[in-house]
Protein backbone atom coordinates (compact mmCIF):
# COMPACT_ATOMS: atom_id res chain seq x y z
CA UNK A 1 0.00 0.00 0.00
CA UNK A 2 1.50 3.34 -1.01
CA UNK A 3 2.01 6.22 1.39
CA UNK A 4 2.08 9.84 0.40
CA UNK A 5 4.91 11.99 1.70
CA UNK A 6 4.51 15.74 2.05
CA UNK A 7 7.18 18.16 3.24
CA UNK A 8 7.21 21.77 4.34
CA UNK A 9 9.52 24.69 5.04
CA UNK A 10 13.23 24.13 4.44
CA UNK A 11 12.59 20.53 3.41
CA UNK A 12 10.98 21.80 0.20
CA UNK A 13 14.49 22.97 -0.78
CA UNK A 14 15.51 19.27 -0.71
CA UNK A 15 12.39 17.36 -1.80
CA UNK A 16 10.45 19.97 -3.75
CA UNK A 17 6.85 21.05 -3.28
CA UNK A 18 5.08 18.06 -4.77
CA UNK A 19 3.82 15.09 -2.72
CA UNK A 20 5.94 11.97 -3.21
CA UNK A 21 4.38 8.51 -3.34
CA UNK A 22 6.40 5.69 -1.82
CA UNK A 23 5.36 2.07 -2.04
CA UNK A 24 6.39 -1.01 -0.08
CA UNK A 25 7.38 0.54 3.25
CA UNK A 26 6.04 -1.02 6.44
CA UNK A 27 6.93 1.73 8.89
CA UNK A 28 8.32 5.24 9.20
CA UNK A 29 11.83 3.86 9.74
CA UNK A 30 11.82 2.14 6.35
CA UNK A 31 10.29 5.21 4.75
CA UNK A 32 12.98 7.53 6.12
CA UNK A 33 15.73 5.10 5.04
CA UNK A 34 14.36 5.10 1.51
CA UNK A 35 13.99 8.88 1.44
CA UNK A 36 17.54 9.36 2.76
CA UNK A 37 18.85 7.23 -0.06
CA UNK A 38 16.96 9.28 -2.64
CA UNK A 39 17.64 12.66 -1.00
CA UNK A 40 20.97 12.45 0.89
CA UNK A 41 20.64 16.04 2.22
CA UNK A 42 17.57 14.92 4.19
CA UNK A 43 19.70 12.77 6.51
CA UNK A 44 21.13 15.86 8.27
CA UNK A 45 17.96 17.95 8.30
CA UNK A 46 16.02 18.45 11.55
CA UNK A 47 12.35 17.48 11.41
CA UNK A 48 9.58 15.61 13.19
CA UNK A 49 7.11 13.25 11.56
CA UNK A 50 3.31 13.40 11.52
CA UNK A 51 1.31 10.43 10.27
CA UNK A 52 -2.18 11.50 9.21
CA UNK A 53 -1.68 14.82 11.04
CA UNK A 54 -0.66 13.18 14.33
CA UNK A 55 2.91 13.71 15.50
CA UNK A 56 4.58 10.34 16.10
CA UNK A 57 7.62 9.41 18.15
CA UNK A 58 9.90 6.55 17.22
CA UNK A 59 9.26 3.99 14.53
CA UNK A 60 5.59 3.88 13.57
CA UNK A 61 3.77 1.26 11.52
CA UNK A 62 2.26 2.47 8.25
CA UNK A 63 -0.94 0.61 7.48
CA UNK A 64 -1.06 2.02 3.96
CA UNK A 65 -2.78 5.00 2.41
CA UNK A 66 -1.22 7.17 5.09
CA UNK A 67 -0.10 10.72 4.62
CA UNK A 68 3.30 11.18 6.17
CA UNK A 69 4.37 14.77 6.74
CA UNK A 70 7.96 15.76 7.49
CA UNK A 71 7.85 18.91 9.61
CA UNK A 72 10.98 21.03 10.15
CA UNK A 73 11.09 23.33 13.21
CA UNK A 74 7.98 25.53 13.35
CA UNK A 75 8.39 29.24 12.72
CA UNK A 76 4.96 30.81 12.95
CA UNK A 77 4.25 34.27 14.26
Amino acid sequence: MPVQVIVFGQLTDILGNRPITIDGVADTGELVAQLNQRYPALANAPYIIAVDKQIVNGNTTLAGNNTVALLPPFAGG
Partner: protein
Amino acid sequence: MITERKPKNIFTQGPITASFIADSIQKHDTKTNIGGHSIFLGQVRADEIEGKKVTAIEYTAYEEMALEKMHVIREAIFAKYPLVCMHVHHSLGRIRAGEICLFVFTSSAHRKAAIDACTETVERLKAELPIWGKEIFVDESHQWKENK
Protein backbone atom coordinates in the same frame (compact mmCIF):
# COMPACT_ATOMS: atom_id res chain seq x y z
CA MET B 1 -18.20 16.04 25.54
CA ILE B 2 -19.57 18.22 22.78
CA THR B 3 -17.89 21.60 22.80
CA GLU B 4 -19.62 24.67 21.49
CA ARG B 5 -16.53 25.97 19.72
CA LYS B 6 -15.80 24.46 16.32
CA PRO B 7 -12.40 24.64 14.58
CA LYS B 8 -12.09 28.07 13.04
CA ASN B 9 -9.96 29.15 10.15
CA ILE B 10 -7.10 31.34 11.33
CA PHE B 11 -5.35 31.85 8.00
CA THR B 12 -5.53 34.94 5.79
CA GLN B 13 -3.74 35.39 2.48
CA GLY B 14 -1.54 38.46 2.72
CA PRO B 15 -0.97 40.93 5.55
CA ILE B 16 -3.45 41.68 8.34
CA THR B 17 -4.51 45.28 7.82
CA ALA B 18 -5.01 47.97 10.44
CA SER B 19 -8.60 48.41 9.23
CA PHE B 20 -9.31 44.69 9.78
CA ILE B 21 -7.97 45.01 13.33
CA ALA B 22 -10.02 48.16 13.94
CA ASP B 23 -13.20 46.46 12.64
CA SER B 24 -12.51 43.47 14.85
CA ILE B 25 -12.30 45.74 17.92
CA GLN B 26 -15.45 47.60 16.87
CA LYS B 27 -17.44 44.36 16.65
CA HIS B 28 -17.08 43.86 20.41
CA ASP B 29 -19.16 46.90 21.37
CA THR B 30 -22.26 44.71 21.81
CA LYS B 31 -20.45 42.36 24.22
CA THR B 32 -20.85 44.53 27.29
CA ASN B 33 -19.72 41.81 29.71
CA ILE B 34 -16.17 42.47 28.50
CA GLY B 35 -14.05 44.77 30.66
CA GLY B 36 -10.62 44.22 29.11
CA HIS B 37 -9.10 43.29 25.78
CA SER B 38 -5.56 42.18 25.11
CA ILE B 39 -4.06 42.29 21.63
CA PHE B 40 -0.78 40.96 20.29
CA LEU B 41 0.37 41.99 16.83
CA GLY B 42 3.31 40.31 15.14
CA GLN B 43 5.11 42.43 12.57
CA VAL B 44 7.65 41.30 9.99
CA ARG B 45 11.06 42.60 11.02
CA ALA B 46 13.71 43.65 8.51
CA ASP B 47 16.50 41.59 10.09
CA GLU B 48 19.96 42.05 8.68
CA ILE B 49 21.82 38.78 8.23
CA GLU B 50 25.41 38.84 7.00
CA GLY B 51 24.88 42.26 5.47
CA LYS B 52 21.65 41.30 3.68
CA LYS B 53 18.32 42.76 4.69
CA VAL B 54 15.08 40.77 4.95
CA THR B 55 12.43 42.43 2.77
CA ALA B 56 9.59 39.97 3.34
CA ILE B 57 8.63 36.66 4.90
CA GLU B 58 6.72 34.12 2.85
CA TYR B 59 4.55 32.06 5.19
CA THR B 60 3.33 28.55 4.48
CA ALA B 61 1.54 26.08 6.74
CA TYR B 62 0.30 22.53 6.98
CA GLU B 63 -3.10 24.14 7.19
CA GLU B 64 -5.33 21.21 8.16
CA MET B 65 -3.00 20.13 10.94
CA ALA B 66 -2.50 23.72 12.12
CA LEU B 67 -6.26 24.30 12.39
CA GLU B 68 -6.76 21.10 14.37
CA LYS B 69 -3.89 22.02 16.68
CA MET B 70 -5.14 25.60 17.09
CA HIS B 71 -8.52 24.20 18.11
CA VAL B 72 -6.85 22.15 20.86
CA ILE B 73 -4.94 25.23 22.06
CA ARG B 74 -8.10 27.35 21.99
CA GLU B 75 -10.03 24.79 24.06
CA ALA B 76 -7.18 24.60 26.60
CA ILE B 77 -6.99 28.39 26.93
CA PHE B 78 -10.76 28.69 27.39
CA ALA B 79 -10.63 25.95 30.05
CA LYS B 80 -7.84 27.78 31.90
CA TYR B 81 -8.97 31.42 31.72
CA PRO B 82 -12.43 33.05 32.09
CA LEU B 83 -12.45 34.50 28.57
CA VAL B 84 -15.43 35.97 26.77
CA CYS B 85 -13.81 35.47 23.37
CA MET B 86 -10.60 34.87 21.48
CA HIS B 87 -9.65 35.59 17.87
CA VAL B 88 -6.49 34.44 16.11
CA HIS B 89 -5.39 35.43 12.60
CA HIS B 90 -2.14 34.38 10.91
CA SER B 91 -0.99 35.45 7.48
CA LEU B 92 0.04 33.17 4.63
CA GLY B 93 1.93 34.22 1.53
CA ARG B 94 4.41 37.03 1.17
CA ILE B 95 4.30 39.64 3.95
CA ARG B 96 6.64 42.61 3.60
CA ALA B 97 8.77 44.02 6.42
CA GLY B 98 6.61 46.35 8.50
CA GLU B 99 3.37 44.52 7.76
CA ILE B 100 1.34 42.60 10.34
CA CYS B 101 1.42 38.80 10.09
CA LEU B 102 -0.15 37.74 13.41
CA PHE B 103 -3.15 39.09 15.32
CA VAL B 104 -4.18 37.54 18.63
CA PHE B 105 -7.11 39.15 20.44
CA THR B 106 -8.48 37.99 23.80
CA SER B 107 -11.28 39.54 25.83
CA SER B 108 -12.43 39.00 29.38
CA ALA B 109 -14.40 40.67 32.16
CA HIS B 110 -11.12 41.71 33.78
CA ARG B 111 -7.71 42.51 32.35
CA LYS B 112 -5.54 39.82 33.92
CA ALA B 113 -7.24 36.85 32.25
CA ALA B 114 -7.22 38.64 28.89
CA ILE B 115 -3.52 39.53 29.14
CA ASP B 116 -2.37 36.12 30.42
CA ALA B 117 -4.47 34.22 27.88
CA CYS B 118 -3.14 36.37 25.05
CA THR B 119 0.50 35.77 26.07
CA GLU B 120 0.00 32.04 26.48
CA THR B 121 -1.80 31.72 23.15
CA VAL B 122 1.02 33.54 21.33
CA GLU B 123 3.68 31.36 22.97
CA ARG B 124 1.81 28.15 22.26
CA LEU B 125 0.98 28.89 18.65
CA LYS B 126 4.59 29.85 17.88
CA ALA B 127 5.77 26.56 19.40
CA GLU B 128 3.03 24.19 18.25
CA LEU B 129 1.51 25.25 14.94
CA PRO B 130 3.08 23.81 11.78
CA ILE B 131 3.83 27.13 10.09
CA TRP B 132 7.04 28.12 8.31
CA GLY B 133 8.52 31.42 7.18
CA LYS B 134 10.88 31.90 4.30
CA GLU B 135 12.88 35.09 4.83
CA ILE B 136 13.37 36.77 1.47
CA PHE B 137 16.35 39.08 1.05
CA VAL B 138 16.66 42.11 -1.23
CA ASP B 139 18.47 39.98 -3.86
CA GLU B 140 15.62 37.36 -3.73
CA SER B 141 17.86 34.78 -2.04
CA HIS B 142 16.29 33.26 1.08
CA GLN B 143 16.79 31.55 4.40
CA TRP B 144 14.28 29.82 6.66
CA LYS B 145 13.09 31.68 9.73
CA GLU B 146 13.81 30.16 13.13
CA ASN B 147 11.71 30.96 16.19
CA LYS B 148 13.72 32.04 19.21
